[in-house]
């Protein structure tokens, strides 16, 4: 059902965990819907220096969470904001149609974390 | 714990149908069912019975039914 790349990210997810004293936190989803994600980010000079996630959800939710952290790490905040759910799914070699909604979590979570950072650090 | 919806009913054994396979006792979660010297089942501990009906469901011979106990004799063996 899942591509080999999706399964590889599910088996060995990158950047799992929580950053202590994070500069921004994004939380999306809801346990009632069966999936939820928390992303914490560390920002330095407008660049995503570190990023970690925790995800409750299916294989697709875990894999897209893992992939979005890989894609965003080291990027400028504006560039990271431009990562779409579609782009994450494509980077994973596609997802089964019934699973596309699971991929929405990942980029949404990242954007929520960046917005949180920006709200905290308004000049 | 399991409480039967049709409360207070206890298993009654039809010894004409019973072939003494003992599956009723096997599935009794409270070990209420014992066997006499002839090998016939009887409800040995009616006070422990939860009316869960597993004895009734598992009996291959339809020899167990749950019935409201008759006055004063909840543990009587059915003829």
């Amino acid at each position, binding site marked *: 059902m899942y591509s080999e790349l999706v399964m590889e990210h599910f*088996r060995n997810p990158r950047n799992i965990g929580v950053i202590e004293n994070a500069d921004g936190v994004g939380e999306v989803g809801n*346990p009632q819907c069966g999936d939820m994600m928390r992303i914490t980010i560390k920002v330095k000079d407008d660049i995503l220096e570190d990023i970690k996630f925790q995800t409750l959800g299916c294989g697709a939710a875990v894999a897209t969470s893992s992939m979005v952290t890989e894609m965003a790490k080291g990027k400028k905040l504006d560039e990271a904001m431009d990562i779409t759910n579609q782009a994450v799914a494509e980077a994973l070699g596609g997802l089964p149609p019934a699973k596309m909604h699971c991929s929405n979590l990942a980029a949404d979570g990242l954007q929520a974390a960046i917005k949180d950072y920006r709200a905290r650090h308004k000049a | 714990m399991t409480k039967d919806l049709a409360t207070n009913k206890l298993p009654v054994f039809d010894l004409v149908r019973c072939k003494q396979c003992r599956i009723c006792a096997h599935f009794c979660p409270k070990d209420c069912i014992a066997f006499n010297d002839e090998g016939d089942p009887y409800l040995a501990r009616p006070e422990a019975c939860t009316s869960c009906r597993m004895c009734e469901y598992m009996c291959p011979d339809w020899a167990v039914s749950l019935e409201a106990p008759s006055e004063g004799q909840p543990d009587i063996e059915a003829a």
Partner: protein
Amino acid sequence: MDRVVYMDHASTTPTDPEVVAVMLPWMSEQFGNPSTMYSLGLRGAKVVQNARESIAHTINADPEEIYFTSGGTEADNWAILGVADAHSKKGRHLITSTIEHHAVLESMEYLEKRGCEITRVPVDGGGLIDPEEVRRALRPDTVLVSIMYANNEIGTIEPIADIGRITREAGVLFHVDAVQAAGKLPLDVEELGVDMLSMSAHKFYGPKGVGLMYLRKRTRVTPLLHGGGQERGRRAGTTNVPGIVGMAKALELADNRMAEDAVREAALRDRLWEGLSAGIEAIHLNGDPVRRLPGNLNVRLDGIEGESMVLMLDMEGICVSSGSACTTGSLEPSHVLLAIGIPAEHAHGSLRATLGRSTTTEDVDHFIKVFPPIVDRLRQMSPIWCENCVCKQRN
């Protein structure tokens, strides 16, 4: 991955080699169509008749009351749609429960959209139906009560005989979906007081694609499939000779070893539950602790989603299923788990293991050994599982 531990017998079972053996001639040299006049076909007609008699004998019915179908779904659809159509002059009210299989619930919904009224009686926290709820739901225009004998997800066994007495008293037709019960619980249509009963061969070590409906004599049901005059004009379609032969053999085998299988599977199931609950925290049993099918175990784990557990267990060679939305192909978790009062967020974290004939003590112990680290790993990556937080204080 060499080892495969198959614990999804409620989903399907491997066809028994003895069943395969009796089927083979009827797909090769004895391929004739039973609806023909020459001996090649008539031999098929004869063997189908023998199968009909054998199955009828097992469930205490007459051979003319057995109608072969393509499986449980067709039998369920036929019973519900067929009765609703044939009895529409009497009324358009049907009664079912909240935990039926989709084959029943979707058929009911189809009728509802076309003007029928459906009452769905509730169940208690263990999934049990109170027969009195069925009695209360009965109306003068009720044409059918459809209740499952045993639930496919949590294995709950329903008080069919009690409901049968109520429907008989009221003169209302009673259909029982016995797909999960067939081959596991003794079936006797007279003792149970049913008018219609569905079963499916592949759930009891028979082939896929064949099932049956028991239909009590003189019960009016509109056919679902129209065409040739097979099954006494009530179910068209070329007779599935090998499937029917295989189903009859499978039911015979299941009936012969029913008690033995039940005792063994219940003991293994209990061993599995004891092992898992001893080794894992915040794991809970779904459904009735006692009144369930012998091989059925359904649990939920706080802080984890079901599909991820299924995928991780698959890497260890263990085949199980989950009540999470992601495995049901919808956004809603299992309707059965919701109906027994389990909140959605917990229903998503449910896992069903259904044991069967091939299950061994080693299989169970393998599961008990590999599952706790999987749970730990998934909880470590879960945003709603943390040491000493509220999630552990829930029950």
